[in-house]
């Protein structure tokens, strides 16, 4: 078992799990074994910046993660039988999730935030972003990026932190995602280089094109991801780079467009006019039985 005495926030996660979600035992050890001490230090450092010694708020976030993960896993089990997402319109998902302040702040956003560290495929995606995408950004030298579908602000934060001269603009339809992202960036002292926009990029196109675009796990939330990708493509300047990712066979409460294979996503990306530079495809865990579905994601570096 990992010695967590030097990692109080990570230790607190195991405490909350042990009391409220004992079946999540092994999560920390598994991630530590997979990603090493760097992961442990990264997780602790980020949680320290975001939560400090506000243990009550941190406990609530961990509990929110637990509830979020349980909901997702139960939906995964049902998905094994139907191989379909629950039939839902974007408007229904928005009402249930994105425009629901309690759900967003108590469960969804803390869940997404902690999943960046606690889910193998999410941390793999982060590593791909840091190791493969950000070096291209630095080499390019541009100083503006658009993040469409900001979520918790995790990836905008990484971009701003990695490139000191960079400015960013975040777009989302959920006021709560925008608020959470603002708080994230404030915690890291990055807020002054970033603008938040409640804006639909399809109905209200963004210009001028930027040298970089980022859109992390947005496509599966949309009824018509192709229209979204077309609009995103117009936001990327020639010679620039984008990182687009999508969740596959991952039936969260607000996932309405089902991607079964990486090729489903890549086909739409290329149809939107992007050229694929590189990609990574990972699963959350190994299936227990060959017939079990597993949440996966695909992250694609694109250019024009």
């Amino acid at each position: 078992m990992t010695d967590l005495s030097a990692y109080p926030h990570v230790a607190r996660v195991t405490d909350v799990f042990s009391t409220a979600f004992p079946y999540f035992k092994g999560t920390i050890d598994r991630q530590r074994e997979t990603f090493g001490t760097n992961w442990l230090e990264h997780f602790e450092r980020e949680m320290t910046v975001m939560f400090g010694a506000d243990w009550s708020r941190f406990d609530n976030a961990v509990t929110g993660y637990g509830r979020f993960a349980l909901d997702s896993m139960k939906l995964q089990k049902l998905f094994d039988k139907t191989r379909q997402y629950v039939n839902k319109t974007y408007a229904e998902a928005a009402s249930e999730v994105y425009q629901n302040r309690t759900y967003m702040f108590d469960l969804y956003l803390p869940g997404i935030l902690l999943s960046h560290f606690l889910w193998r495929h999410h941390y793999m995606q982060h590593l791909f972003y840091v190791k493969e995408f950000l070096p291209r950004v630095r080499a390019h030298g541009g100083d503006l990026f658009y993040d469409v579908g900001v979520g918790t602000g995790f990836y905008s934060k990484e971009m701003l932190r990695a490139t000191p001269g960079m400015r960013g603009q975040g777009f989302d339809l959920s006021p709560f995602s925008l608020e959470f992202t603002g708080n994230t960036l404030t915690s890291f002292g990055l807020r002054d280089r970033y603008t938040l926009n409640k804006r639909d990029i399809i109905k209200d196109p963004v210009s001028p094109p930027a040298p970089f675009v980022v859109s992390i796990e947005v496509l599966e939330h949309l009824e018509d991801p192709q229209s979204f990708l077309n609009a995103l493509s117009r936001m990327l300047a020639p010679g620039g780079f984008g990182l687009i990712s999508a969740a596959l066979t991952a039936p969260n409460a607000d996932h309405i467009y089902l991607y079964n294979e990486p090729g489903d996503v890549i086909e739409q990306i290329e149809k939107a006019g992007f050229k694929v530079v590189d990609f990574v495809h990972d699963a959350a865990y190994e299936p227990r039985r060959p017939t079990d579905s597993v949440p996966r994601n695909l992250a694609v570096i694109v250019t024009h």
Partner: protein
Amino acid sequence: MGKASPEQERKIIEMITPVFRSVFEDDKLVVNRTLNANMVAEWDSLNHITLVVELEQLTGTQFTSDELASMADVGGLIDCLAGKGVAA
């Protein structure tokens, strides 16, 4: 969520024990109110969800997010099922 009566608890434990034994592949597993995942090596998150779904099917009930989060041990599960009128 109230606490199950002793009679309800006895009936529910009798009902759910075969499911626990099947999911955790342990024919001798003793199911009681204090049993939790810390006491059963095989009780991880994937088996937990299998358990939940099979118990929903067995009892004809559906657990909400709040209810799922309240099941840190078998006691929470028993009280939840009792609250839904199982073995009433």
